[in-house]
């Protein structure tokens, strides 16, 4: 990634590349992502059903639709989107991630296209669904990145973003405690890069999008991670063209 317009810091891409092989182990260093996955998929499913007015019981609500997951890692989100019926493209800045993801999808019998590179420089066309989970906090030039995502969004498309909030609680728990106890690998987060829901909503408006729903992802003993009104740690939002 020597491209001068690169929006992801090279040191961050290298950091995730080192984790690639371990991604799919539910007890490995991505254990937190595996636990987070059903929670954010719950929000994504609800957004899909609402956005396209589909049958909430359907096993393939994304049939006939294209989806791209930006910052796809080893495909933890791409594979569910593929099972839900979408033609899925996964993009990741780290080539090791894209390679690991492709190998896993093939073994699982899923037809998913993975590409290494940056969403702003790859020629991909547009998608009905654009997802970008836990990426924007790693991005240096957020307006440029959101503009690139918006370019990929079809006119009637749905964009879903999730990211940690910038609060005292997230500083303590996500950056401090979670990395200290190993729940999240050290060096994953830089708190100063986090955006609040208000800031993100403003940035999206600048990109020509309007936020249709936002929910917190909270954690409680006995209940684990769950969707909540409490956005102090992490949040997930749906947006469409204004």
């Amino acid at each position: 990634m020597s491209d001068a317009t690169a929006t992801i810091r090279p040191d961050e891409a290298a950091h995730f590349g080192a984790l690639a092989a371990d991604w799919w182990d539910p007890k490995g260093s991505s254990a937190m992502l595996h636990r987070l996955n059903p929670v954010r998929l719950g929000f994504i499913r609800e957004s899909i059903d609402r956005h396209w007015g589909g049958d909430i019981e359907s096993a393939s609500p994304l049939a006939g639709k294209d989806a791209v997951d930006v910052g796809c890692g080893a495909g933890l989100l791409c594979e569910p989107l593929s099972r839900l019926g979408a033609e899925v493209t996964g993009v990741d800045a780290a080539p090791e991630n894209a390679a690991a993801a492709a190998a896993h999808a093939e073994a699982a019998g899923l037809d998913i296209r993975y590409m290494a590179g940056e969403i702003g420089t790859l020629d991909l066309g547009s998608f009905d669904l654009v997802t970008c989970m836990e990426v924007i906090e790693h991005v240096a030039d957020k307006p440029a990145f959101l503009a690139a995502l918006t370019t990929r969004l079809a006119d009637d498309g749905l964009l879903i973003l999730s990211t940690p909030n910038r609060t005292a609680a997230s500083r303590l728990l996500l950056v401090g405690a979670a990395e200290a106890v190993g729940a999240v690998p050290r060096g994953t987060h830089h708190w100063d890069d986090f955006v609040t829901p208000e800031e993100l909503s403003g940035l999206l408006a600048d990109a020509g999008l309007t936020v249709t729903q936002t929910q917190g992802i909270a954690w409680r003993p006995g209940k684990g991670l769950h969707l909540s009104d409490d956005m102090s740690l992490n949040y997930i939002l749906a947006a469409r063209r204004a």
Partner: protein
Amino acid sequence: MPQPSDTRDLLILGGGLVGMTLALAAAKKGIASHVVDRADPASLTAEGFDGRASAISTASWNLFTNIGLAESLEPYGCPIAKIAVTDQLKPGRIDFAPEEHEGSLGRMFANRQLRLALFEAAKAEPLIAWHAGVDVVARERGDHGVSATLADGTVLKGRLMVAAEGRRSPTREEAGLKIANWQYNHRAIIAGLIHSQPHENVAWEIFYPEGPFALLPMLDDEQGRHRSALVWTVDESDGDGVLAMGDRAFIAEVEKRMGRIFGDLQANGPRSSYPLGFHHTAKIVEHRLALVGDAAHGIHPIAGQGLNLGLRDAGALVEVIAEARRLGLDPGDAEMLARYESWRGLDAFMVSLATDGLTRLFGVSGPGASAIRRLGMAGVQRIEPLKRWFMDEARGVSGDVPALMQG
């Protein structure tokens, strides 16, 4: 020539009452399964193969309704209007009777009738591939799926393996899931009775120091004779003797224990027995594996909850897998299996413990102990919340009830 099979969501090992209910409930949600059982269905449903009867709680009945069995089963169910609990027929009896609007405490069915209805529905269900009368010689749980190899070389593939083989589940043993296990050194004698007076839909639990003596109301037979199913707990050392008795001697022993509450008695059909024990696994899931029914927890039949617990496992597991499907997750997703485990683990353990506690309470001998038991029973009679808990458990409506089992 064995053919390689298609990969289905579920590979269910054990196609008995719980395994087949699971397969049918999954099919209603669009989830396909392989069901593998070593027994031949014709022998399982032959007259006289299994004289056992099961209490089907309200929640379990709701599940049968949701999988389309209610209509075919309805004519064979005998509603339980009341449960009478006594200590050796002495005064101090507790009656569990629901209020008018609460409906029955459950229905009694011959296990044979349940099997017939389940097997018929399974045959008609295209999402169930039923492999009966076959032996599994190898099991594999890999990164992307599971498989079972049959004796003839056929390999059946799925995403999630479900062990529904009963208390001696070889799949559980092979996975190394530890069970807490103790035997009661008692045997349950199962027999049918014909009696001259109607049971009036009352189930009896009569406690003796050797264990409970339970009478469960059944529908009258074709000739209009009144029937009940007997579950009589005897000492392990007496088990064979009771099985070998002539009908007349057997009825005399039975009459000593139940008196003439139902008038004249007559033996009905063959007698069978099985050893009683308590077992429970703390872990009911492993990599791409879930345990259901007696493979996960076996309980004393004193409260008639064994099958209901297993059916609740089936309802909960289907709900979790259907949710995984709604989210696009693999049916064997570790996170979703963890949800099943935390949902069912505690519930099953509560019922197991309570049932075991009851058995121990009533398993203590001596006249002093009997007085304590009667006091205990009067206590239960008085303490409304406890009585409510007992009744809700019997009806299967306490705790977090799977959606498939709600009315």
